[in-house]
């Protein structure tokens, strides 16, 4: 639909024939294009601003090398800055805590929590030989607990038996007890989806945290999310203190600007990305790849 940023910046900057450093004016025009590209990629407006400010500072005064075109040089600065803001080093799930290590999944409705719960359970089993128990605390969505039970069965991961009538906090307690008594290394708590302005449900989420003392609290969010990414990430982080983010539906053709937004407003690392519906469609976060996608390259 659009020319990619690289082409656009080349169009603007490569006509600079004079040698020397990039001027305020050259960079200013280029930053308008960067802004456009980021907004088209769903990066939140405030984050776009702080990003372009940082890039501007880096680019102004930058020596234009004879061998490389100015457009390409600015693209490299933009790309590097994006990678830096996305978090240059991969941060895997941390299991360094006394067993059973609790991982709690939170997020908006339909973001992919239950699917990701099973994916993580499978990965921990396959890669770390971790004995993992999955527990659904979702007493609200029709057949949510059954969904996790089936996923556990399909992937040979234990799930906490369903007891009808228990509240989410009661299930959390039972899950942690079962985790201890059953000699599990990891207990993953799948919670019901909630909007971050639903006060009773946000309180319930904090209550679950208090009971289960999770070592990781992962915010599961859709890579296709638009400008709302900042609101949801901020709210979930403020209310439970997330330790990381999982970005789902990266197999879509969205540009994934939400990654930058959520990382920027929470400072919390993106730990994993979901790339499909099946249990093995989970990958480590690769900032360079996402940077390329956000820039449409």
């Amino acid at each position, binding site marked *: 639909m659009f020319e990619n940023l690289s082409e656009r910046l080349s169009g603007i900057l490569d006509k600079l024939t004079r040698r020397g450093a990039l001027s305020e004016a050259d960079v200013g025009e280029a930053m308008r294009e960067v802004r*456009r590209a980021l*907004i*088209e*990629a*769903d990066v*939140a*407006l405030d984050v776009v601003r702080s990003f372009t400010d940082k890039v501007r500072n880096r680019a102004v005064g930058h020596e234009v090398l004879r061998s490389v075109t100015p457009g390409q040089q600015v693209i490299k600065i933009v790309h590097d800055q994006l990678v830096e803001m996305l978090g240059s080093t991969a941060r895997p799930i941390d299991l360094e805590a006394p067993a059973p290590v609790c991982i709690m999944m939170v997020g*908006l*409705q*339909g*973001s*992919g929590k239950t699917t990701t719960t099973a994916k993580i359970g499978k990965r921990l089993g396959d890669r770390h030989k971790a004995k993992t128990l999955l527990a659904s605390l979702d007493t*609200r*969505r*029709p*057949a*949510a607990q*059954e*969904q*996790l*039970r*089936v*996923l556990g069965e*399909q992937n040979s991961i234990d799930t906490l038996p369903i007891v009808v009538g228990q509240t989410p906090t009661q299930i959390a307690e039972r899950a942690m007890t079962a985790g201890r008594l059953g000699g599990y290394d990891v207990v993953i708590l799948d919670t019901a989806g909630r*909007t*971050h*302005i639903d006060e009773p449900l946000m309180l319930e989420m904090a209550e679950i945290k208090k009971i289960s003392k999770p070592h990781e609290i992962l915010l599961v969010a*859709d890579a*296709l*999310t*638009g*400008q*709302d990414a900042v*609101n*949801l990430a901020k709210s979930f982080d403020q209310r439970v203190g997330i330790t990381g983010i999982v970005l789902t*539906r990266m*197999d*879509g*053709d*969205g*540009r994934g*600007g*939400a990654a930058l937004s959520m990382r920027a407003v929470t400072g919390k690392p993106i730990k994993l990305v979901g790339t499909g*519906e099946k249990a093995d469609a989970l990958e480590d976060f690769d900032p360079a790849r996402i940077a390329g996608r956000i820039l449409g390259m």
Partner: protein
Amino acid sequence: FTKRRLDEATLEDLEDILIQADLGLATAARITATLRRDRFDKEISDTEVRAVLAAEVEKVLAPVARPLVLPPSDLPRVVLVVGVNGSGKTTTIGKLAMKLGREGRKVTLAAGDTFRAAAVEQLKIWGARTGARVIAGEPGADAAGLAYDALVAARAAGSDVLIVDTAGRLQNRAELMAELEKVVRVLKKQDPTAPHDVILTLDATTGQNAINQVEIFGKVAGVTGLVMTKLDGTARGGILVAIADTFGLPVHYIGVGEGVDDLEPFDAGDFARAIAGLDRHG
């Protein structure tokens, strides 16, 4: 109250409001350009500014605010519900079944998501809640075959409406889109005029990708109308403005919660006011 000039700086602020509501750059710029042309440099209060903005957005949305109309017929009216994963298809079907049931129609639901874990059980619970009959097959069964069987069953039972649930799929997954095309094809074998309505559910939190969703689902499944879900959160769903502008597809309903009654008609004025940051009924 303070008046301010609707000058270039104010217009830029307005454009930002629209961008933050997910209208996208082009649509946001187009709407602020109209304001610039018609109102530039007038003295105007903040609330007035927003009201003017809302009015401009409403102009785009008003033509697409069209409820789902199911004309009475001898054969079941077939409503196919499609969309990306987790966008709210199954829940919307439950809410629709309730609404139609209350209007006195006999509703059958087809559990066409034979893929996702417990998708069938989920729809069955909605069936039980709303009194709609549910036709389901084995997990992993062919979705098109199930849709066909469900239409046969709906006819035999004298149902007024058959609503077909489908598995969530991302529009760029060609093989999954081909499967959906097959569901449409197979329904036509039973009734060449089916599906009569193809509803695409759009999640309000989705950004610019929703445009691709409408385009590709439209091409593959012949989408006839939209439902935007999850408007009870903080997302404004402004991409719908760009979509109305580009595709002109009717928006039938909005989803405002997980309960059976959380389906409202789409009101262009309310929606536009929320985008402009005014009270929905302000």
